[in-house]
């Protein structure tokens, strides 16, 4: 199913309960494809094998 930024952005804003002006919505629609593409780029098999670290982890702590 093709993602129509205009439809998607309006639906997401409605779901979030926020109501920008039409001019502001149009600006957000323009930026959405780039933002979505950046988020989609994170779904690689290599990344998905890791557990989420909701805060920076202490694994790299070393005595220095």
């Amino acid at each position, binding site marked *: 199913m093709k993602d129509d930024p205009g439809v998607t*952005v309006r639906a*997401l*804003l409605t*779901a*979030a*309960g*926020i*109501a*920008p002006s039409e001019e*502001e919505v149009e*600006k*957000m629609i323009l*930026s*959405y494809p780039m*933002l*979505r593409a*950046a*988020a989609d*780029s*994170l*779904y*690689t098999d*290599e*990344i*998905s094998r*890791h*557990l*989420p*670290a*909701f*805060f*920076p*982890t*202490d*694994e*790299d*702590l*070393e005595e*220095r």
Partner: protein
Amino acid sequence: MIDGLPVTITEAATALRSRSLTSLELTERLLAQTESLDATLGTFIARFDETALAAAAKADADFDAGIDRGPLQGIPLGVKDIIAAREGATTACSKVLDPDWGRGHDAPVVARMRAQGAVILGKTATLEFAMGPPDPDGPFPLHRNPWDLERWPGGSSSGTGTGVAAGLILGGLGSDTGGSVRIPAALCGISGLKPSFGLVPKSRVVPLAHSLDTVGPMARSARDCATILQAIAGASPDDPTSIDRPVPDYASALTGDASGLRVGVERDHHSRSAGFDSACRERFEAAVSALEGAGAEIVDVRLDGYPEINAAALLTSAAESFAYHRKNLQTRFNDYGRATRHSLSIGAFYGSADYVQAQKVRAWGLAKLRRVLSDCDVIVTPTIGVPAPGLSEDFWAMMEWTYTPAWNLLGVPALSIPMGPVDGGLPSGLQIIGARFDDATVLRVADAYQQVTEWHTRLPPCAQTAG
């Protein structure tokens, strides 16, 4: 020096202790500098002249009595107006923040500076909620770069940046969630540290993105940043993200040289990018050479996954800031500045799975960084790949060339220091990144660079002619 006054904390601390200068004299002169320049630069949101002069007098009385509370005694400093200070309200430069937020209380970082006898001159300007581009239609002053008043000083810690650069304060606090200490440091020609996540408590600090936010020092030199960091670092019981571990002696780590240290130079995702400003590239390469001259071993490195780490940082920031502001965006959308509400609304575009995936990138990215740091002690990059933009230019165009957010996601220390002028005499910044909780080595490398260069001593023309 500005009119014979020291412009660094280190110089001022020496003068105060020799009593060749009193804190009262220093504070009065900086207040006069503020009178001359603040209306133009937009540095302060609130000034605490009366209480600052009283604190300066107290510092002098303590010195005369042989009482020395610490390196910040008698030193005039600024505090970004998302950090609570008891003298007045915190605004976050927004109409939205509760007017009583933090009123009457000091954030731990402010209390710690005050415990050393620091003089708090006032609350410095911030982008609204430390978030996005300046809003020229907003009720808060526009921020101007001291090096070119028609250019942006960077943000969101704009006021602390301009205040230090123009000599209105000798140092101060900013906050950094995606670059908000380092960007104004780079564009204003000063030094600014994003410390390790968890090193400095951020209770009574208005949050932006809770897993990325840090409070960091801004001053003219890395040595001065180390002095402020020494005062503010350490766990606080009211901040569960602050890590309880011993705070190193940062001053003693500043050996003045980089001998025995390996400096990793990451060019592939930075200065080798198409469209990178050629003058910035020249300055960066010159900085690398200077580090070698300071005793460092230079190693070429590449951080695989940098684009994904950067993307995850921006997604995490958008999601977390949206979560914090969601209710107010629903009920007070138009009370936010236009640019701020646009930036905050972006968080609504991501789903829960996106946020979780970004946190997997955090773990993945930390593993990749650990591999790079097995070959070097610190990594260096430019802070920003273009000069300060004009006030009317597109802020997001500059962000494309800003190399700061990735290090917030990974929770590691990152410091920006001046590396020389680019076109039009505008400052440029060298970014030094280290392992988590190895802020000392980052500061040591920066201090070593500043022993062999003088870029951090440059003063903007407006600072030299004011007063």
